[in-house]
């Protein structure tokens, strides 16, 4: 067996240094990174990268910052597996490997000029935050903007500081709800679906974009359709375990679709007939 050394096969990584970390919840940690050597990661909101730690492996993580703030990029990592647990042990100054970005992000060019209803559930806020901040930074490209966020309980609230900022903005309607409140919680209680009927939107002009767990999609989509938003104006990001990111390994496959290459962001009409997609 002969061994050939190649420079590019798709499996090489770029080194990125952790600039800052902050703990968002007990299980979620935010990492701000930049590529070593000054190169800027060229990505779109909604895309993901494979994060690599030698000896541990790789995991697909959505980029949660907006490309409008380009000097660095951010990843919100929940410690659930081997790699993510190892990542949580890292601090500013440490180095990781990055492959990507991969996949199709949110359809910005289609969204421009329209009203937006952005809906996140749980850690789905992380990928959606990329779009939210993109919209905030390009606010006059869009019409009316509503953001709805639902999460389990106040302890699991991500990006608290930013949420306060969004809540204070006059040009964005932001609402937040928790499934289970604690004594200090003063906001809404209940599922994010319960917020939808009360949102004042013009359905023909509105694109709904959502990121959350599959169970949320089923209920939210029903509400959105009830509200009169057309199927081709409903956009969602599907979570799968993208192992290779190159449309080969099969882990993220839904019918004939590879989430890592054809998605993770899809229009609802594309996937609505694919059983098991949501």
């Amino acid at each position: 067996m002969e061994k050939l050394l190649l420079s590019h096969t798709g499996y090489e990584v770029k080194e990125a240094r952790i600039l800052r970390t902050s703990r968002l919840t007990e299980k979620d940690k935010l990492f701000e990174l930049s590529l070593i050597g000054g190169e800027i990661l060229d990505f779109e909101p909604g895309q993901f990268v494979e994060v690599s730690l030698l000896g541990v492996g790789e995991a697909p993580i959505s980029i949660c910052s907006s490309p409008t703030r380009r000097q660095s990029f951010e990843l919100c990592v929940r410690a659930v597996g081997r790699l993510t647990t190892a990542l949580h042990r890292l601090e500013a100054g440490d180095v990781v490997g990055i492959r990507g970005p991969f996949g199709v992000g949110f359809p910005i060019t289609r969204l421009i000029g329209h009203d937006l209803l952005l809906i996140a559930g749980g850690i789905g806020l992380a990928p959606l935050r990329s779009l939210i901040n993109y919209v905030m930074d390009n606010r006059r490209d869009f019409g009316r903007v509503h953001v709805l966020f639902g999460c389990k309980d106040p302890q699991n609230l991500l990006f608290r500081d930013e949420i306060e900022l969004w809540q204070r903005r006059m040009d964005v309607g932001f609402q937040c709800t928790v499934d289970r409140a604690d004594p200090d919680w003063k906001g809404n209680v209940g599922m994010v679906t319960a917020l939808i009927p009360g949102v004042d939107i013009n359905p023909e002009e509105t694109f709904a974009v959502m990121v959350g767990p599959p169970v949320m999609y089923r209920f939210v989509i029903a509400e959105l359709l009830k509200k009169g938003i057309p199927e081709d104006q409903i956009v969602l990001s599907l979570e799968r375990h993208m192992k290779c990111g190159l449309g080969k390994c099969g882990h993220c496959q839904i019918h004939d679709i590879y989430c890592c290459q054809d998605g993770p962001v899809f229009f609802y009409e594309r996937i609505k007939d694919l059983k098991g997609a949501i």
Partner: protein
Amino acid sequence: MEHLVLPKSSFDLFVESLVRRGKVVAPVARGNGQFVFSEVQKGSDIALRYIPTILPPKKYFMPQYETLAEYDTRRGQKLQPVVEVESLILFGVHTCDLAGIQCLDVVFSDRPKDLNYLVRREYITVIGLECNDYCDTYASCGLMGTFLPQGGYDLFFTDLETYFLIHVGTQKGEDLVQDMPFLGRAQSQHLAELEALRARKAQIFRPEVPVDRALLPRMFKEGFEAEVWEEIGGRCLSCANCTNVCPTCYCFDVRDVPDVNLVTGRRIRVWDSCQNEPFAKIASGESFRAERSDRKRHRFNRKFSYPVKRYNRFFCTGCGRCSRVCMAKIDLKETITQLARETGYLKV
């Protein structure tokens, strides 16, 4: 391209000549009616009549364990991509397995191209071997139309009693048969005998299940909720034998293998299987194909429906390996028959 004639008395000379050029791999008998592709030194090592080998030639194109990159943590988090290659002459590949290699070629040439596969591929010379009759009753090459050669080889052998007729398929094949004085040019009578064999074969190899091949993708789509999936799902043991032996199953896992010094190591890919429960699991613990019936249906659709849409070809080559190795006796032909019956696609 031209046809050549190799008298059977010179077969050993031919194999010796190949062995002088490099490592030769061919079907070899392993007892209990089983065959494997393995290195050979001489003509008599080769089983010219064999049922599909336990593992298809896939193992040379996409090894079960393959190094994608090497690392040395003293150099930071960088990876050095590598491709492991070996010059190989693969002799005696049946038409079903040629079709299997073509399927892999299509997948790994699709953008983004997989250089680990494509670079290694260049080092392999493929010599096909025609089946004059069925190998056994598990095959469904009549249904899939893979009992005749459709390219994908450098040389192709047809056994015509006293001699082999060799079709030269590529320049690589042409180069291989240079300086082989025991080869003669084919005459019209040889080509006539090939024609006659092919005509006989057209009578022997008939669709093993009475369905229209062109309608299979539609049948699988319409039969997505058919009972057959529950039925075979109930028997499936989730052992992944079917995907391991499939010539077109290419799913893999990527993982790190640190050396014992914990300083250096490799990132590898290993065969994985959609039949394993964790295959479609995500971080939250949700599994998108939690039931065995979901996974069986997914695999069948990945042979007869999804790739037709994506790559415009079937990913079942009719080799019959999945049925041969299934411990629960889930039979591909029976499954298709049952699905065809449920969906009304069975011809009467």
